[in-house]
């Protein structure tokens, strides 16, 4: 496609280039203004941490523009929610109305993400929908924060809001808002956030009116379509530069609790022909018996967001979705669970796997932007009664961490960065948490050796934990994954570290709770901690420059022990107090030769024998996941034979196959 072959007027539906550019930028300003308003007035700390998104949609519900700072997982879901409202209220939408929806079975993400949608009218005709979507702190259900891993269907998860009218021709339906708010644990905050979002959409409406006053309705409505054409053209031009072909891979959820041990596959096939891409997710495994399944909207979003990561400069709207199509397949799979199966944990489950599988495929297509697997989104939740105050109010210690991103072509991965789920999602200040909850944080630090080894190391993950003080009737829940499907490397790089929560580590009450659990009773004095994984490594770690390994040792990103084990680099301490260390060149050469000769065979060793060596303290977790490809139940030390077999195959494909012959 060439911009030169047609006149700009033809390209932009008759708009002159200036009007087009001005309106395009104005639409960006409209959604960013909505975002700024929400950020400054919200009540939910989750929204304040930037778990929200805004969009302007056209009269058919297609997205004209999405916010430039929006959370990734909402990408590609806002137009679906808009369409659901248009469908249910066809012929019954009026000036001054406002609607709400959170329905994950109608294109939404999960119950916590509530969209407020305002139809915008010009001369009595519906021309647009302004949408503000935010993560509310609690939506009811059996668990504080509405994350119940044990829920197998929607009834245990929270309040489902199908398209519903909350403002009727300018009159706020307080009864309807209350119906929702009173089914949650934080009704005051819910009402506050609802108002903040209603006002944000009103600001968007005012801005559209201003544009109409200046340019006229026809021009503005034409620009709604022209801006989508524009993004479609940009996207198609970019795709046309890529080779045609079919690329396939799979990434995995740890386990289906309703089935025997073994990884659950999310399969992503990508076909490029000409200037179009089709993602096909339909070959993914059947839906599982916990809430890591996703609905169709989130699956669509995962595919789109992985593509967007490799075309970061293209603005997002429905034009993007016309050039990149996604086949989700029929209901009943882990990526399209269907009502009433549980889906609230989709953001840690299927969504993450689609995103990262996409990264693996795109890394082959655009090696200059290649990136290994990034750490998996994780949420830890402690809820109960706070005895510090006389009325013993409900408290929620609802926490998520930054973690490591994958190693890249020519660059190490980024340390301690927000999850791919939403890079704008800010971690919370622990000093704020300590005021609001009876939990004292014991540590918030980068974990030595957590980055997946590689020629370019994965970014380091983070450890956070704490001690419960004056709590009562408290329970702990965790929504994560990748205790077994460990964050992987590519092009010869190695995995990082498994996820999972430890309770009272190092005491006789020590328990490994795993990477997904809910409602574990906890009490005063209990201590907990968990890691966020590092990113996977990129390239063969034995080819990493020893000088870079030395710097990593000085900064404590890598330990002296693992510098030798993972990188074959022997570092000697000269004066730790002055950060003086040096590389022993001769010992390094010898260690690397030894490692090259021996490493392939370790993936063939009898897994049960390896598990025994782990249990008697000869090998540690990092040895198992990086060098032996053996996966255990990390609490009991029991071998998971089927998972190990699958994991070894993946390690051979992504890592060992790229190592030079010994």
């Amino acid at each position, binding site marked *: 496609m060439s*911009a030169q072959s047609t*006149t*700009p007027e033809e*390209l*932009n539906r008759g708009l002159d*280039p*200036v009007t*087009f*550019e*001005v309106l*395009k*930028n104005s639409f960006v*300003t409209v959604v960013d*203004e909505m975002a*700024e*308003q929400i950020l400054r*007035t919200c*009540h939910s*700390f989750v929204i304040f941490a*930037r778990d929200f998104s805004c969009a302007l949609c056209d009269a058919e519900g297609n997205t004209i523009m999405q916010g*430039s*700072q*929006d959370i990734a997982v909402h990408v590609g879901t806002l137009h679906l929610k808009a369409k659901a409202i248009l469908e249910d209220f066809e012929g019954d939408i009026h000036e001054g109305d406002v609607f709400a929806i959170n329905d994950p079975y109608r294109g939404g993400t999960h119950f916590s993400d509530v969209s407020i949608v305002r139809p915008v009218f010009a001369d009595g005709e519906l021309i647009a929908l302004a949408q503000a979507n935010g993560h509310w702190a609690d939506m009811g259900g059996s668990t504080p924060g509405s994350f119940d891993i044990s829920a197998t269907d929607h009834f245990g998860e929270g309040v489902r809001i199908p398209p519903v009218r909350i403002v009727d021709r300018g009159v706020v339906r307080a009864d309807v808002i209350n119906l929702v708010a009173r089914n949650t644990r934080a009704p005051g905050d819910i009402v*506050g956030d609802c*108002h903040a979002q209603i*006002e944000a959409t*009103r600001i968007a409406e005012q*801005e559209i009116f201003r544009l109409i006053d200046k340019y006229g309705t026809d021009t503005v409505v034409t620009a709604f379509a022209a801006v989508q054409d*524009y993004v479609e053209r*940009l996207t198609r031009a*970019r795709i046309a530069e890529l080779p045609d072909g079919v690329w396939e891979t799979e990434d995995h959820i740890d386990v289906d609790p309703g089935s025997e041990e073994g990884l659950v596959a999310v399969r992503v096939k990508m076909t490029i022909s000409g200037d179009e891409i089709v993602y096909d997710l339909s070959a993914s495994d059947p839906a599982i018996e916990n809430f890591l399944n996703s609905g169709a909207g989130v699956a669509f979003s995962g595919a789109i967001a992985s593509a967007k990561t490799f075309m*970061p400069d293209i603005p997002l709207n429905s034009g993007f979705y016309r050039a990149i199509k996604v086949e989700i397949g029929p209901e009943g799979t882990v990526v399209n669970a269907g009502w009433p199966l549980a889906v609230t944990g989709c953001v840690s489950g299927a969504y993450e796997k689609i995103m990262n599988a996409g990264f693996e495929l795109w890394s082959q297509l655009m090696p200059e*932007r290649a990136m290994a697997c990034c750490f998996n989104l994780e949420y830890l939740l402690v809820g109960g009664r706070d005895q510090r105050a006389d009325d013993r109010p409900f408290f929620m210690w609802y926490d998520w961490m*930054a973690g490591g*991103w994958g190693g890249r072509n020519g*660059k190490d991965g*980024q340390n*301690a*960065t*927000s999850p791919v789920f939403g*890079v*704008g999602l*800010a*971690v919370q*200040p*622990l*000093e704020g948490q*300590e005021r609001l909850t009876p939990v004292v*944080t*014991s*540590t*918030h*630090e*980068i974990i030595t050796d957590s980055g997946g080894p590689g020629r370019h190391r994965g970014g380091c993950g*983070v450890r956070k934990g704490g001690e419960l003080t004056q709590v009562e009737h408290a329970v702990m829940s965790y929504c994560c994954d990748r205790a077994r499907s460990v964050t992987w490397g590519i092009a010869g790089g190695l995995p990082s570290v498994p996820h999972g929560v430890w309770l009272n580590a190092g005491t006789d009450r020590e328990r490994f709770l795993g990477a997904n659990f809910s409602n574990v009773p906890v009490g005063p004095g209990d201590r907990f901690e968990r890691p966020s994984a590092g990113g996977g490594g990129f390239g063969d770690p034995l080819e990493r420059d020893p000088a870079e390994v030395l710097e990593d040792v000085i*900064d*404590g990103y890598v330990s002296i022990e693992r510098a030798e084990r993972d990188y074959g680099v022997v570092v000697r301490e000269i004066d730790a*107090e*002055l*950060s003086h260390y040096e590389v022993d060149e001769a010992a390094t050469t010898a260690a690397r030769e030894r490692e090259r000769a021996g490493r392939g065979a370790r993936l063939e060793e009898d897994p049960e024998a390896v598990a025994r060596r782990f249990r008697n303290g000869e090998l540690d977790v990092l040895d198992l996941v990086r060098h032996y490809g053996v996966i255990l139940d990390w609490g009991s030390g029991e071998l998971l034979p089927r998972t190990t077999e699958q994991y070894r195959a993946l390690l051979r494909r992504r890592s060992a196959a790229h190592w030079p012959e010994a």
Partner: protein
Amino acid sequence: MREGTTKVVAVDVGGTFTDVCVLDQSDGVLEVAKVSSTPDPIDGVLAGVAAAGIDLDEVALFCHGTTVATNALITRRLPNAAMVTSRGFRDVIEIRRGTRDDLWDAYKDNAPPYIRRRDRFEVTERVDCTGKVLEELDEDDARRVARTLARRGVETVAVCFINAYANPAHEQRMAEILAEELPDVSISTSSDVLPELFEHERFSTTVANAVLSPLVSGYVSELGRRLESGGYDGDLLILHSGGGVMTPEAVERLAVRLAASGIAAGAVACQYTAALCGYPNAIGLDMGGTSTDISLVYDGRLRVTNEWFVEHGYPICLPSIEVLTIGAGGGSLATIDAAGSLRSGPQSAGSVPGPASYGTGGEEPTTTDANLVLGRLGDRLVGGEMTLDPALAEQAIRSRIAEPLSLETTEAASAIVQVANANMADAVRLISLQRGYDPREFALVVFGGAGALHGAALAKELSIPTVVVPPRPGAWSALGCLMVDIRHDLSQMFLAPAHEADAEDVEAVFADLERQGRELLEAEGVPEDRIRLERSIAMRYLGQWRSMNVDVGAPVTDLAAAVEQFHREHEREFSYRRDEAPVELYRLELTAIGQTDDVRLPRQERADDPQMPSPVHTRDVWFDGFDEPQPTPVYERAALPAGVQFVGPAVVDQLDTTTLVPPGVLAEIDEHLNIRMHITEGS
């Protein structure tokens, strides 16, 4: 101010140029010198003073805005620094809040922290959120760390303990131990720099203060010494990010306040100009070659933010004037993107290769080239020292923009300027409309090299009725350093629901803050009658995450009025209020002001019958909405006396800028020699 002399000097050190303004207070005559900035910025300052043709011993007051601190942070040319923190938390400043500036580009990384991990040390200690000690400071541990730092030759240390805002005792004890083991080292504690909740924001501000401290204090005292040896014996005042000036002694304690010194000057100049012209509300547009700084004055005051950073992820949470910088300037490149759309900026031709018309190798068209092709800009710049080549500009626009878009060259040039204007207008909307301010109630103050060319068109786009072009737009921001008072911003956390808070407790905290503020000003020699103390309370609806400041008078006897004021402000800014929702006090803030002498700017009484001079010449200029170029008179600015009025089209040329007056716009010269343009619907 020194007695007997009348000259005040303002120096603004920027990345490329050092501007020196000398204002003679006796007659209001303003001299401006521009010299290249030098590797040691002080050389440039003194060269500029020499170029302005003054002796230091005739200078009464020397004010200074500098980018030294900003540049040091960006380039990481920082002293050997270390951090000491609570056990378990040495990575707080590296984990940040986790976010990345560019959400989608996985190859665009955050900048590294100002202090590397190897230089961050932990000691055993812990207090809780009420200030109660959970674990005593382990003094052996503390001394061990201090001795290690001494062995390492550390020059500056940041001490950052969890919850130190609630109880500073451990930090203070750590600082004492450090002082014993490292006698000549500068020490910043988080409870002193920013005694506020939220560890990353407090630590980050403290770390920035620590790394800047030796550098900036050294710079300021060296400048003081060299000025003194040159014969100057008056005060040296440095502009800080909050839009006040501070003395070298204050800089020593709080170096981080200079982090935005260079950016604040222009905003202050806008505020001053607006006040002089009688406009309570103004938007400042400082448009240079590569970027434009936009600031906002409401009811005579600049908007100030506590959420400011030089690099994403490393907040500096002391009050800073809110300035929005966008990549739009005279040198912004016009391009056509892959989907055939015309774009302007943010890439810039810079000074190398420069706009196509400079003839210095630039081949891509810029906003300057478009203005030249349209006749809005003349072909001579800087008083004729530099010539522009319209043929090169035309060639660039024709081949890169006009032909691909099937437009005439002048149509393309006009489109480039319109797109650039639209981008600036969007930026102005972001800081005005979005915050609940209506641009129609504002004046637009335009300065910088390129502001006056675009001011009228922008005002029209934004429905702003008046544009003000100050007399020396190119040097105006430097003058900002002279136009401010000494300011200290002090604060104290005060978390309590308003209906439960005791007004007496609030008053007690304010009284203590006032005592501190007074002490600081008195130590700086500010006399009692020049001291002004301003109080405000940061409040929010209970459950909200961001707070909003409400001014309060003294003494505080009743909080109900402040709460009502909060509801009103919230409604103005966010268009709704929740009378039924409880309001929470968050923080008490005090600004202690030491008023400096007013500057006297150039002034000319309006003649009874001012005469319009003859134009220097007439040239054809393309204006928006006209199919033909309009014959347009070109005036020399210095020849326009106070009181004259004229109707566009007109072009006003001067050494450092060109002012464009579109057809139908009424322009007048006021007694301060500003050009004021009145934009009406039809113009």
